């Protein structure tokens, strides 16, 4: 038993080391050397037709803004189709969409009231309703700029690109301490992590919004799994497993609203963890065997999927350490090593680690907000709990063969 616990602790330490090394390498690569260019500098008079899909559930507070932003897009009007999806709203979202449908021929809303609710199901329906090969997705609280559609679409000039992802920037960064931390986290995650993964030709992730994909490819891969809480991660992995690439557009920035309350953040993280772990269970083995990916890409893909498994792993290792300590069986040396790697992990661990956030702060020209970096320690503890609950959900989904219920992150726009 003691030996098993010690082996387990060593395994967890090894995982921490791999993540710490990854974060170091990615952060340094983002800071040093030229970055891989994105396709936004391609100006082309022969643009493809594009469908922009916007899933909406009780979005009366923000529906006007996203629709106006897209109608003001510089993309040629005759090539742009806007498909807002009213997904079981019980506020005035449907009325707003009907008004826009009457006033603008480009707006072709879908109304879903009698089928399964949730973003994956809504996207599947939009996939069949959309008429164009390129499909972009924006959440209802996003505000794409006038050039965003063109810049995202240009990625599909590359015949290997199956999906593209832009950068999201919190619009309510200064609202609460939580939003200030999430603002830093997003900067680290996009400005450093996603960009470095794109530069290093690893596996940048399609985030399900402020991005897009090829409709025929998504349909050929079976669309969005309604039983998966992280439909974006699921599609990302299936794209890579079938030889497609995901492009990352760091310069295509789009405002989004981040949770302002810890409760909303807890449920968001829990849903992400549940979805990620579902995808890990479904595709982890296939990813490791993929013939389309180089070994380093497989490793990066696995690190992307395992990331929401790490906090429970760490908690289990701490519990094992505690047992060993109480039994008086914990040698000094392993304790020191463990302490070292726990500190390392705390500093460079998951969720937009310190180093990445700091470098993003330099690149984005942040001033005072980087002073909140030490507060990530508390956010990290909070994340541990939410992510562990998400893992438990994913396991119970399998045990009880239950379907996840879509729980939308609340809006805070006033």
């Amino acid at each position, binding site marked *: 038993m003691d030996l098993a616990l010690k082996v387990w602790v060593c395994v967890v330490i090894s995982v921490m080391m791999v993540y710490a090394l990854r974060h170091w390498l990615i952060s340094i690569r983002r800071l040093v050397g030229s970055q891989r260019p994105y396709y936004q500098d391609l100006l082309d008079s022969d643009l493809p037709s594009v469908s922009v899909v916007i899933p909406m559930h009780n979005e009366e507070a923000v529906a006007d803004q996203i629709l106006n932003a897209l109608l003001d897009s510089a993309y040629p009007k005759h090539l742009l189709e806007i498909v807002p999806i009213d997904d079981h709203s019980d506020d005035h979202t449907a009325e707003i969409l009907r008004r826009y449908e009457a006033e603008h021929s480009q707006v072709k809303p879908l109304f879903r009231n009698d089928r399964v609710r949730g973003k994956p199901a809504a996207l599947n329906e939009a996939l069949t309703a959309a008429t164009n090969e390129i499909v972009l997705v924006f959440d209802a609280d996003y505000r794409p700029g006038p050039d965003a559609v063109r810049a995202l679409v240009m990625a599909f000039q590359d015949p290997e690109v199956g999906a593209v992802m832009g950068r999201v920037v919190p619009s309510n960064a*200064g609202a609460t301490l939580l939003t200030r931390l999430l603002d830093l986290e997003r900067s680290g995650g996009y400005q450093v992590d996603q960009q470095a993964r794109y530069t290093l030709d690893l596996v940048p992730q399609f985030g399900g919004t402020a991005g897009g994909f090829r409709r025929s490819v998504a349909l050929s891969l079976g669309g969005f799994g309604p039983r998966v809480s992280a439909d974006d991660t699921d599609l990302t992995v299936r794209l890579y497993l079938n030889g497609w690439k995901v492009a990352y557009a760091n310069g295509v920035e789009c405002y989004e609203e981040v949770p302002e309350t810890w409760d909303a953040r807890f449920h968001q993280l829990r849903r992400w963890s549940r979805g990620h772990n579902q995808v890990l269970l479904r595709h982890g083995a296939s990813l490791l065997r993929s013939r389309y990916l180089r070994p380093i890409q497989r490793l990066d893909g696995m690190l992307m999927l395992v990331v929401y498994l790490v906090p429970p792993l760490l908690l289990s290792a701490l519990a094992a350490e505690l047992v060993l300590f109480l039994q008086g069986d914990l040698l000094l040396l392993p304790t020191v090593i463990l302490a070292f790697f726990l500190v390392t992990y705390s500093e460079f661990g998951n969720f937009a680690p310190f180093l990445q956030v700091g470098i993003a702060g330099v690149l984005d020209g942040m001033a005072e907000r980087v002073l909140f970096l030490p507060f990530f320690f508390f956010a990290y503890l909070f994340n541990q709990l939410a992510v562990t609950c998400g893992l438990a959900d994913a396991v119970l989904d399998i045990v009880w063969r239950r379907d996840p219920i879509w729980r939308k992150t609340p809006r805070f726009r006033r």
Partner: protein
Amino acid sequence: MSSQVALLLGLFVFAMLLPFIPGIRELRRPRDTLSLPVDNGYIRNPRHFARALRNRLAPQVATAKGEGEIPLRRHERITICDLLVVPPGATAPDLLVVRHDLDAAAGASIREAWVQGDAYMGAGVRMRGLACDRSLRLGPKCTVDRWVDSEHDTHVEPGCDLGMSATAGGVLRISPGCTFRRLWGQPIRTVGGRLSDSEPEPRRTIENDVVWARDRLSVPPGALVDAGIIAYGRLVIGPGAVVRGTVKAYGELVIHNAARIEGDVIGRSSVRLGKGSRVDGNVFTERDVYVGADVSVGREGAFKTVFAARHVTLGPHVSIYGWVVAELGGRVEAI
């Protein structure tokens, strides 16, 4: 508890709290609460600089009558005149609006100017920014610190440094020995060179949706490939071959003489377009692009882009309809 232990404990707590103090101060007296800036009005426009200058000056000029000076903020002033001749070696005032033609003699220096007629820059003229509503001619060895733009044609004589951006609503003709970063023209033409030889007829046909190659791939001379091509190594398109799709290569991508690509050309490494070859789509590479003599990119009435994350070299008699971007600089080959 002894005083020593209490002191150590206090020091420990202080050391633990120390990193949080700046954040707590920022939380109590916020100084950096705005969202990161996103330019939600930005639309990529190769002629942005000239448009911005015209938009900035137009309201001032509209109300001004005759010649004179208009003070602006930060000690700037606009000098408005009908015709202007800048003598050799002279420096023109801060901001110029010339209602008709501008003629700058050799060695003159101009800061920023909006010329509503034609503009002629003599040899060795230096300018920071110049927007011209008609035609523009840059004499030999002119230096552009930032940008030049003309609504009609622009002719650039040998040895000019075109700065960050040289754009024209009409033809942008560039002579050998010029250097640049960004070009826009309908089309961009390099001066000199000979016309290409007649294209050999396609002989063999390869059909598929996409031709994939694990390693390097060579398309035989004169072949017709009715598909796109993706090669994970070096890709060579033989002389006179025709590819009816997009070609992408992870290694060097060489398109030989008189070959034709009907889609885009995407290179993860360098791209070389041989003499007389033709690309109907865009050219995008993460390294360098060499555009050989008589090469044509894009077509009349449309625009495409030649983008290189590093350098672009243009041979003689090249025609590019649209935009050229050389992130680390480009040049027109000296004959």
